[in-house]
């Protein structure tokens, strides 16, 4: 099962809202994945295949050399933007 993790500062509100948008995009394009959300402090230690976060966290993630695909969004709950950025990654992973 493909693991997607959505990340924000405290891992409570905006990452959760983004997670719900990601889940509905996945449903629309017919991909099964398990989506969860967490805070940035814990994100480096997780084993997700894809991490999705806000543009403002990009510099934070650059400090870690993470093996998973990273996606940074301008608009965390915009399904169009999520789909545009997520579909190529899913295709590369062979999940779509």
């Amino acid at each position, binding site marked *: 099962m493909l693991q997607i993790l959505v990340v924000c500062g405290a891992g409570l509100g905006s990452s959760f809202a983004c997670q719900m948008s990601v889940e509905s995009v996945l449903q629309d394009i017919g991909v099964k994945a398990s989506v969860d959300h967490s805070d940035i402090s814990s994100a480096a230690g997780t084993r997700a295949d894809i991490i999705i976060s806000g*543009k403002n966290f990009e510099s934070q993630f650059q400090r870690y050399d993470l093996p998973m695909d990273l996606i940074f*969004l301008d608009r965390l709950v915009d399904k169009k933007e999520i789909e545009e950025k997520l579909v190529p990654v899913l295709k590369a992973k062979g999940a779509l």
Partner: protein
Amino acid sequence: MAVIDFIINSILTQASITIALIAFAGLLLQRKPFGEVMSGSFKTMLGFLVLSAGSSIIVGSLLYFGDIFSEGFGMEGIVPSIEAINGQAMNDLGLANQIALTFLAIFIFNILLARLTRWKYIFLTGQALLWMATMTTVFGSAAGFSGIGLILAGGLVGGIFAVAMPAIAQPIVKKITGTDDIALGHFCTIGYMFAAGIAKITGKNSDSTENIKFPKGLGFLSDTYLSVAIVMVPLYVVTSIFAGAEFGTELSGDVNYIVYAFLQAVQFVVGVYVLLSGVRLLLAEIVPAFRGIALKVVPDAKPALDCPVLFPYAPNAVTAGFITTTIGTVIAMFVLPWFGLAMILPGMLTNFFAGGTAGIFMNAVGGKRGVLIGGIAHGFFITLLPALLVPHFNSLGFVNTTATDVDTVTAGLLFEWLIHPIMNLFA
């Protein structure tokens, strides 16, 4: 009869079970498969108990800090933390059941109000609703409400805030995001509007913060727990030095008293981390269920979302607002005691989220100058309101702490200053 007694007195008095049952009912209503119903209910219960464990860690650290602070400076230093207030209200005041049910009542009133009024907002920031439920329950019961009345009063007040706050912020949110699709659901909105007002007056024709080049090194500020630690560690360590070796060693035993202070500061962050992890588990099932039901009842509703949803629109404004708000809270820390109010230490969690969001608001209407002047005023404002509540919190038995998010503080003050006297007339 004995069975019913057992259920009422031994099971339903356990808030973690009550909350699990709420989730259980919600999952059944959504006709989820049985496995998901069970795992979701269990996760919710686990979340509640993790939250309680985090609360105990915070309280332990705050008790220690209170001791060294009063020894070192001869006065009380209050740590503003809505998480600590919530934890203490649930654990030590025995209000957990009422808070859980009020939380549910706020959901229901939110949906009703969105359906019946022009304010079509569905408030999806679960933890903020939990803080609001905490405050309305604590101050509602202090005002003389109990039982169903307490839950309805808290639910109605919280429900009004849940639609009114996104509504008053929406004109500026539209300006920031360029769309009318999403709203802001965060209970610091009165502070944002205050800050934006100041910024509008002071920041005419000022350039946007997004043209400032901030050093890359400030990126760590967006790491919530790290930025809390960066403030708490010096605060504890310096205070322990003022309290002195003799006093410090009484508390620290075999550990060097300064090292102990350092570790206790980190313990505070650990407590916040654990408590918020509990909140995350607790909300994982409840929020999507609420969203699903709400959108069925109010199809044209806008989701009101947590403040970091706005952060990518103006990341520099977030950093700038955080810094200027922090300056304002430090000034207020020294100034408020002159007026006979408590000394409130800067609360870094709020400073980051509320300060950062206020930064975006202020930049939208008043650019750089607006963020600087408005931010300092904002920091002062969000310290003043919680300071007004300190005497009430002390009389209710809270340890060394006060609430943070100004909308929830306003709800508390509303009960204390307006509803309580009215209740007394009828009592």
